[in-house]
């Protein structure tokens, strides 16, 4: 199911689409057993304090996936999260997980002055909370990004928007795409193995050290002046335009003094503004 991507048939821009990445990951785990896909993934989702509330998840009897559902609960700003996962456990307990996935872009909306939560995660949580309350489910918002560490700033902004608008706090879990190759590296499932290959191809890994393999010497070099192939006729370039007399002249403003005993001979006035 990932053959086109593994064979490099997509452009870099196409490969970088977060919808494709979301579809790859959650599309793949939809077709494997919970034990092989969903459970290990959710087990690694963590709060800012490092706690993983879904670590002990088991006894799943049913899972439903809705991709890019449109949510507009009463009193909420509408939103379109990436996936909505409804889990039913054997004991009848319901869990509702809203997945918001990011790859190379940030949140699509920020806090504003309105009275409803408007920051992307904040309004998604608002919808999720209302929906979960309606069907007696336990809500979790899973934020998946390519960050190396917990994206505290972005998540705090969302929590702040929610609190400012008179509501209780948000329970956001975070997971890095980069963790998936590690989570699934021992998988025997062919779909999951291919998923790991795609993720690695996209550079979604953590630092693993430097691996430099042997490269044979090569003797190629360009020799200036040697065209390297026979020409039937000598190369001739003829200029067919009449040069225009340009009046403009560059006026040298100052003389540059070189000081060879210092590190930087020219004093550079230009600076990047910070």
């Amino acid at each position, binding site marked *: 199911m990932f053959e086109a991507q593994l064979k490099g048939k997509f452009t870099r821009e196409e490969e970088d689409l977060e919808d494709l990445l979301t579809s790859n990951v959650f599309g793949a785990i939809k077709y494997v057993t919970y034990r092989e896909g969903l459970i290990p993934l959710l087990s690694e989702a963590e709060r800012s304090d490092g706690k993983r509330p879904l670590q002990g998840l088991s006894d799943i009897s049913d899972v439903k996936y809705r991709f890019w559902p449109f949510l507009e609960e009463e009193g909420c700003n509408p939103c379109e999260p990436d996936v909505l996962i409804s889990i039913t456990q054997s004991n009848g307990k319901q869990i509702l997980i809203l997945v918001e996935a990011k790859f190379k872009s940030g949140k699509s909306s920020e806090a504003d002055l309105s009275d409803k939560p408007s920051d992307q995660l904040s309004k998604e949580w608002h919808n999720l909370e209302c929906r979960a309350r309606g069907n007696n489910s336990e809500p979790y918002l899973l934020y998946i990004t390519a960050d190396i*560490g917990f994206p505290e700033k972005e998540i705090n902004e969302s929590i702040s928007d929610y609190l400012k608008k008179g509501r209780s706090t948000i329970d956001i879990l975070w997971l890095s795409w980069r963790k998936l190759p590690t989570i699934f590296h021992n998988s025997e499932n062919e779909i999951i193995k291919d998923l790991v290959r795609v993720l690695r191809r996209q550079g979604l890994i953590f630092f693993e050290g430097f691996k430099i393999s042997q490269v044979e010497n*090569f003797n190629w070099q360009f020799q200036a002046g040697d065209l390297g192939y026979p020409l039937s006729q000598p190369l001739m370039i003829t200029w067919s335009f009449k040069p225009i007399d340009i009046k403009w002249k560059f006026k040298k403003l100052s003389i540059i003094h070189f000081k060879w005993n*210092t*590190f930087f001979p020219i004093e550079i006035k230009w600076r990047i*503004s910070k």
Partner: protein
Amino acid sequence: MSEDGKNILKLLKQIRDLCENTSLLLQTVDERMEKEGWESYSNTAIAWSSASVQNPKQWFPDTLFRFYTNNSHENILLFVSIILGDDLRGQYGEEITEPLITAGCFDFGRSFKVVDDWDYYYAKLYGYLKNRKDQGEIHESAPGWQEKWGKKYWRAESYKCFGLPLTSITNPQDIETKIVEPLLKLFSK
């Protein structure tokens, strides 16, 4: 395709892989430093590159770097850099015999804020030193170092830095124990 052609492609792929690994390493440092309250300065990791057909030696960077500032310590500038080879101007104190990862702390003095008084070449600090052993030993500025090095180019009052072979860093734990922890100790000493 000729063997030479294949080998050129292999080499170029390895250069790209090296860039990706180095980027991951530096992003891991960023993440750890941010947890300690140090904000990374922009996304920039290279400088002095050239797009000119006349400067091919500058097409590929010789130094990769990250700088860190902290609002609670406005006079301190920290950096982590990767020195990939000799300075193109030939200004390093010793030959670079293998890629190095270096880290350091510039102290601008109690009455002075870091603000704009630094530049990307500060990341090359370790390379300019003499008698390096590249085994993590700490080098400190000697009194009057600014006068010797050119005060208008080096505004900080003092510096401390160290360097290690890049290949000694093989996993995130090494980044923590060999780079981030010693770097933060430099500042607190």
